[in-house]
């Protein structure tokens, strides 16, 4: 097993290629640009397609085209660029096109800054574009997971014919860590529904328009059914010392690592803290949180935003226990010390 010291932003490209991704369409933006740099370096070596598009709008529509052609395809960007992609992602969801979008969240709103934030949770998890749709959202918290979840993203996208978002923050993208490089997938699925310019596929249509109200309602119901199955089957999370915990921290991405350090410090002081780290943001580990709410005293959500994931935690807790927030914005990553102090004030 080869181990490499990689940036998260490079690891996700290696993962993608090992998952059989053969096309990358993107537009540069900090702190996601190394993803494009790595794609520009490695995709052509594999005979695969790399195009720097004229905008994020063009890039996501190229993704739509390649996905329509049945390819494993990806793009990557950050806040402002993801906003521009929203319409295209909605089209992909509507036309049920599998594709992978990496979002390396930065400070917002507007041009904001290029520091890390988690302020696009709602944008990514709640859909972000128009219409009744959901993205599958994976939240890596290490360079290793950028690679591994990057691979998984393509499997899930094809399994459900749905856009999958790899949602990371500037730190997870910029950070370098050792990554154990996985084996490539054995094969990629043959998509019978795709439009490839071949005699076998020329009767196929890829579209998201349904003029007839009845047909569009049925289409929407079908999508909702798919999301329900995803909620049933694809929830992923990591628990850390929750067994006997009084207070459970809920955090993803870089915040989860800070929270884990805080839990360690608190435990060494005799405070029974634990951590629940959602790895899938949609589907959200609702049931797990509900179950925890039965046995613990309170939750503390640690987020680099104005408090967005906390809404989903509250929904799952159903008012049974207090749900607190410790948040930073503007590009600051909370420190373990800050989180520890917040826990101590809550426990007091």
């Amino acid at each position: 097993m080869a181990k490499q010291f990689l940036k998260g932003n490079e690891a996700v490209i290696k993962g993608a290629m090992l998952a059989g991704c053969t096309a990358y369409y993107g537009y540069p933006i900090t702190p996601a640009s190394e993803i494009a740099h790595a794609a520009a370096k490695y995709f052509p070596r594999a005979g695969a397609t790399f195009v720097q598009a004229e905008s994020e709008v063009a890039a996501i529509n190229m993704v739509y085209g390649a996905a329509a052609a049945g390819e494993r395809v990806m793009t990557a960007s950050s806040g402002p660029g993801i906003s521009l992609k929203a319409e295209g992602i909605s089209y992909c969801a509507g036309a049920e096109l599998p594709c992978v979008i990496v979002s390396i969240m930065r400070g917002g709103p507007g041009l904001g800054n290029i520091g890390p934030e988690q302020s696009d949770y709602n944008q990514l998890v709640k859909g972000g574009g128009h219409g009744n749709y959901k993205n599958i959202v994976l939240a890596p918290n290490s360079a290793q997971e950028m690679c591994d979840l990057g691979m998984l993203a393509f499997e899930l996208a094809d399994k459900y014919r749905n856009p999958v978002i790899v949602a990371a923050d500037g730190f997870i993208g910029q950070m370098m860590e050792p990554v154990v490089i996985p084996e490539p997938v054995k094969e990629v699925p043959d998509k019978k529904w795709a439009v490839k310019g071949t005699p076998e596929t020329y009767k196929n249509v890829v579209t998201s328009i349904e003029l007839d109200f009845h047909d569009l309602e049925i289409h929407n119901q079908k999508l909702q059914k798919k999301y329900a199955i995803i909620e049933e089957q694809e929830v992923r999370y990591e628990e850390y010392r929750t067994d006997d915990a009084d207070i459970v921290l809920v955090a993803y991405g870089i915040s989860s690592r800070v929270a884990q350090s805080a839990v360690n410090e608190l435990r060494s002081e005799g405070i029974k803290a634990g951590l629940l780290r959602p790895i899938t943001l949609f589907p959200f580990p609702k049931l797990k949180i509900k179950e925890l709410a039965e046995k613990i005293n309170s939750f503390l959500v640690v987020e680099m935003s104005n408090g967005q994931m906390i809404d989903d935690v509250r929904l799952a807790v159903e008012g049974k226990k207090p749900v607190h927030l410790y948040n930073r914005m503007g590009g600051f990553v909370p420190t373990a010390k800050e989180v520890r102090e917040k826990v101590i004030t809550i426990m007091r």
Partner: protein
Amino acid sequence: MSKTILRKPEAFYDAFTRKAGDDFLTTTYCPGCGHGILHKLVAEALEDFGVQKKTMFVSPVGCSVFAYYYMDVGNVQAAHGRAPAVATALKRSNPESVVISYQGDGDLAAIGGAEILNAANRGEGITVFFVNNAIYGMTGGQMAPTTLIGQPTMTTPLGRTLENEGYPIRMSEIIATLEAPVYVDRVMLGDIKSIRQARKAVRKALEIQIEKNGFSFIEVLSACPSNLKMTPVDAQKWVREVLADYFPLGVKKDISATFPGKSKERHLLPLSEIPTILDIKESKINKDIIQNFSGKDFHEEIKIAGFGGQGVLSLGIVLSEMGMRHDFEVSWIPSYGPEMRGGTANCSVHLSNKKIGSPVVDRPTVLVAMNLPSIDKFEKDVMEGGYIFYDSSLINKAPKRNDLHVIAIPATKIADELGTTKIANMVIVGAMIEKLKLMSQEIVIDSIGEVIKNKKLIGINKQAIYKGIEFIKNLK
């Protein structure tokens, strides 16, 4: 003598069963609309060239959104203005195919301006049909970028004015200024004769794609009787006499005779071979040696700071790479963004035998300062009992704190003596491993070659590390 056979082309459906409702025989187009005519010209050419089953037709948002009701080929419906982007990817996925990007004037010249210009400029091997009817048809007759001065629309009820809306845009002329397009032509569907002319252009454009994989752009002046509020006959007359007056017909560019053609090949590497192109190297580590180090309980938080260009970031990466070779938990994060461009740079490294939480270093156990501002900025943060390594050839003001181990090392001077300032950072690496005893010197020296990008510099980097080690030894 040619004889006329009255039948629909193969690539045009006989009955439109994809249509909603139960009328499968009439199209969704109004009487006198140009879209239906153009569809048939395209369909006929696809059949004649024998490419129906390898054609992909990208339909836009606009009246022709439902082209897939009619065109018996592979169909992909695109977002408003983005057909050339979708077509770009379809073609690159399957370079042997024939890809048609079909757009209206709002779709192509307004909302999709960037996509058409850039697809044309890249010279994508696609054929673009641009239906210019001087109006937004689908949404009920609003102004298009090609609406004529004085022409009333729903959003220019008193007629388009220069003052408020500016001139109508001539897309063919713009596209023709680009280097990559092979053939750019403007035709009209104004009468039988002009339709025949349009037919020729359609066929030529498709041939250029089929034979040479070149980009062509055919603008088709076309009637929209419903929104012009004219009879089909009057609308066609208006196209001939008014529209074609502002938008001159004819070839705007044609390099098809000299265009060498573009490759249609795409050779994807088999999946099993992907690891071979990803620069993955197994490093051969002597597990016996690292046991002496990885077993220890430790956690170092290292801040490395200096000017951009001093190799601050790579010093951190080298330490981290070496840490990884000792099976440590490792993280590295740069201060990224504009401040880097401002001339100072820093990075944070964690080396530990425990899982690393936040990669941030707020309270370093070790500070490496390669310039004075770094001392000023970070000295106060260093943990009690921690270390400061600083380049004493550049910093003439020693750190003030006396609760720290302070190591002054003339790294730049030593590096200069070795022949290049660039390796001052490696002198410090040597000093650090000797002083901190975190790592095996043998492993660091043996594997430095795996880490350095410029392989010619491996020797001098090793020398620099030795010098750093020696310097610390001589201090004792």
